[in-house]
């Protein structure tokens, strides 16, 4: 397949995904509509890990922090400086990018478990001493956080109550666009350099890949993607608080990214949906009676479920849910093709 035709297919797939995803939550109640938006926000978070871990092989346990910085930066721009929401998003993405580059600095020397611990420390520090500290009230809006009543973008009113789905459509559109760029990136020169760093840093550096530049770029881009998702959080939720961006969310993002297949872009969509909907479904419908026994599967069970699923996945489908699915589809397709060829040959012989 030539490059241009492959690109066309990808663009069409992205448009199709957008058309389907944008309509999906229309019939749902307001709670699930909110979940759908949250799913995209976390989808961006997992997408950022697909780039950083899946492509470049760097570990990070502070992706929720990047999203949080994006959320607070957007909230601050809107509430303090009264700028249009689009500009707030741009500032948030830049802020997250800058933080990502700074966090990437230790990655120049560290890797694997030490890097994981350093990023974990960064998540902890931001959670405790930035998002929840009075000294940073100018950034976080104090203990109450920022309140965002709504915004007008592209002539459409968006807010967290009446015009909930407008923001969702925009978010899904952005998600599909970034996902498309990520898929393009994978097969391009820069994507290969990223993957070269993942497979062997030593070989990459001696083959002319500037490790400093590409590692920092990867961290910056990854943080920017997480921050882009986060920057819509104030609009979607109506306010920002530290709780969604704490350490545990980062860990959950990493776990779900691995669960769904950290090397594949579509896994981010799966992961986002999983992360936003499953806890809510559990909280809403997870209690009742079966005969004489009453049961209560609350939100807490979600954490356990993720852990158990992760173990099962690592044993049964080490490439993640999407990776496994993809392999099966490719296998089935090859099978069908050879079967079709056999049938065609048979016909010729019969004739």
């Amino acid at each position, binding site marked *: 397949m030539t490059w241009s035709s492959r690109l066309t297919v990808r663009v069409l797939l992205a448009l199709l995904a957008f058309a389907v995803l944008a309509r999906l939550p229309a019939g749902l109640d307001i709670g699930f509509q909110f979940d759908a938006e949250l799913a995209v926000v976390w989808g961006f978070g997992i997408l950022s890990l697909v780039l950083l871990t899946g492509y470049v092989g760097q570990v990070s346990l502070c992706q929720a922090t990047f999203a949080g910085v994006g959320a607070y930066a957007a909230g601050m721009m809107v509430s303090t400086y009264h700028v249009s929401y689009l500009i707030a998003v741009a500032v948030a993405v830049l802020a997250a990018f800058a933080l990502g580059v700074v966090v990437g600095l230790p990655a120049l020397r560290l890797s694997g478990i030490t890097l994981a611990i350093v990023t974990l420390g960064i998540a902890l520090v931001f959670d405790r001493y930035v998002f929840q500290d009075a000294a940073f009230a100018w950034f976080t809006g104090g203990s109450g956080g920022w309140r965002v009543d709504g915004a007008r973008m592209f002539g459409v009113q968006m807010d967290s109550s009446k015009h909930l789905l407008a923001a969702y459509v925009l978010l899904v559109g952005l998600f599909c666009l970034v996902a498309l760029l990520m898929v393009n990136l994978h097969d*391009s020169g820069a994507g290969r350099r990223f*993957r070269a760093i*993942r497979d062997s840093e*030593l*070989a990459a*550096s*001696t*083959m*002319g890949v500037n490790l400093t530049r590409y590692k920092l770029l990867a961290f910056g881009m990854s943080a920017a993607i997480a921050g882009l998702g986060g920057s819509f959080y104030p609009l979607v939720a109506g306010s920002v608080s530290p709780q969604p961006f704490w350490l545990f969310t980062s860990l959950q993002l990493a776990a779900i990214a691995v669960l769904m297949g950290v090397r594949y872009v579509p896994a981010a969509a799966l992961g986002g949906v999983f992360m936003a909907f499953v806890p809510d479904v559990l909280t809403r419908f997870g209690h009742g009676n079966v005969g004489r026994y009453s049961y209560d599967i609350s939100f807490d069970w979600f954490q356990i479920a993720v852990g158990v699923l992760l173990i099962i996945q690592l044993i049964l489908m080490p490439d993640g849910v999407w990776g496994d699915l993809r392999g099966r589809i490719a296998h089935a397709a090859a099978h069908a093709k050879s079967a079709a060829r056999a049938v065609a040959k048979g016909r010729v012989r019969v004739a």
Partner: protein
Amino acid sequence: MLRVRDVTVRFGGIVALDGVSLDLNRGEILGLIGPNGAGKTTLFNCISGVIRPDQGSMFFEGRSLKFAPPHERARRGIARTFQNLQLWGSMTVQENLTVPMDALGGRNTFSDALHLPFSTYAERASSERARAILHVLELDDYARTLAGDLPAGIQRRVEIARALAGRPQLLLLDEPAAGLDARETGHLAELLHTVRERFHVSMLLVDHDMSLVLPVSDYVYVLDFGKVLAKGRPSAIQNDPKVIAAYLGDESSKESNKSRDVVAMPRRKDEAPLLEVKQLAAGYGHLEVIRDVNLAVRPGEVVACIGANGAGKTTTLRAISGMIRPRSGTVTFDGRDITGKTAEHISRQGLIHIPEGRGLFPNLSVEDTLRLVSNSIGKEPDLATAYRLFPKLKERRHQAVGTLSGGEQQMVALARAVLARPQLVMVDEMSQGLAPTVVRQLFDIIRMMRDEGIAVLIVEQFVDSALEVADRAYVFEHGTIGHSGSAAELRADRKLISGSYLGSAVDVVAASNGNGHHADPALMEVVSVKLPAKLKRTLEERAEREGRPTGAVVMELLEGVKRV
């Protein structure tokens, strides 16, 4: 083209490279050989920028490499391959080749993500070029295969292809023939010549396998203990007694021969073997390293395994001791079948394996290390015996093992093995990285162990010392046993062994070539930049005949030209 001057590298207390100087001319294939631990790979890493030398300087095309990071060196035209294959396994072969191409092309990440026309055209150009390189290296069929799925032999060729993709002027080849059999090695030699013709590259070739280096190279440097031992044309190197000694061990240690003859006890041939290995095959991943290995060790016998690097000695030991699973064949120890049993189970049977690198715990004291043995024998070990055999360790018993010298560490490993009351101890590369005097002490210990009734199977680079101690020996060649016999027989027939090390019947066609450590680098620079390699070599040879610096000869000739 490349000048290395007095490069010294230390790792902790160990001097890996000690004032090494080396010159490489344009268009030349320069061979770099030397026994294990001689510092060849370290020198390689210095040139490609992976490690920084403690002293000395390096110049490439007249510019210093001092502050150039690895990717900058790649940009200037130095490309390399890796001994322990470093291909990007999850990418196709073609993708592997395009990385260095566009890493040097200065492409833009964002235009790549957007698939702008600029990126698309560059993409097409690099995939064309990749195909051309793959064709020369006879890899056309593998372009779309994932590099990690290929067998090791093919991966080595892909590594060369990838190095060529960055349009290098100098290609550093680190052990390209490792794991190849004799026929494949011959083919690789032809291929390297084709590569030089087609891509106009110079090469620095490191390999243990002299049967590759000698026919291919124009000039050869020999490293030993971090120093340049010899240099010269391949034909001269092959017959250089110093080089043969370095590969086969120090001949001067012959004096202690007499003592050995007294110790040597006649062994009853019919005694049932303690360890018996039949038709053993094993390997890693796609690579089958050993096949059809048959060997036996009788109780209280010292048996040596010798042979060139990569011949399969270490793998054989690992397959015996259960560190890797044998693919086929049987291993019988003390009448029991231990094929494929866990390493722990086997060590409890009384078969102790001291791996290459000794397998010690650097932060534990000597005494604690020895006490750990109680875990495997189930009672407090008899430390007094150990200190009787190894008096030196008693002095050092409270010292952390990591702070001991290499020889003392090896003693700790041996002492630990003895305390476990084994019937058989297998020692892998016991004398690796140790000075000859220390090695002699260690061999005395091996003798002591035999006197205690412990059978020993050793893998050695120091062939002479090993054969002195051993009762019998097996010579490994390309993954199987080439010869075996009593140690005395093998010692008498040095040719037999030197063949397996140095490549038998190497037909060296020495191109007219010269090189050398030039007395006056400033004058040398004139020569290396302005003259074709052949002319320069002739000049150098004349200079050597007349015992003058090359620069002086050049100046004299230039004077002559002026007068005309």
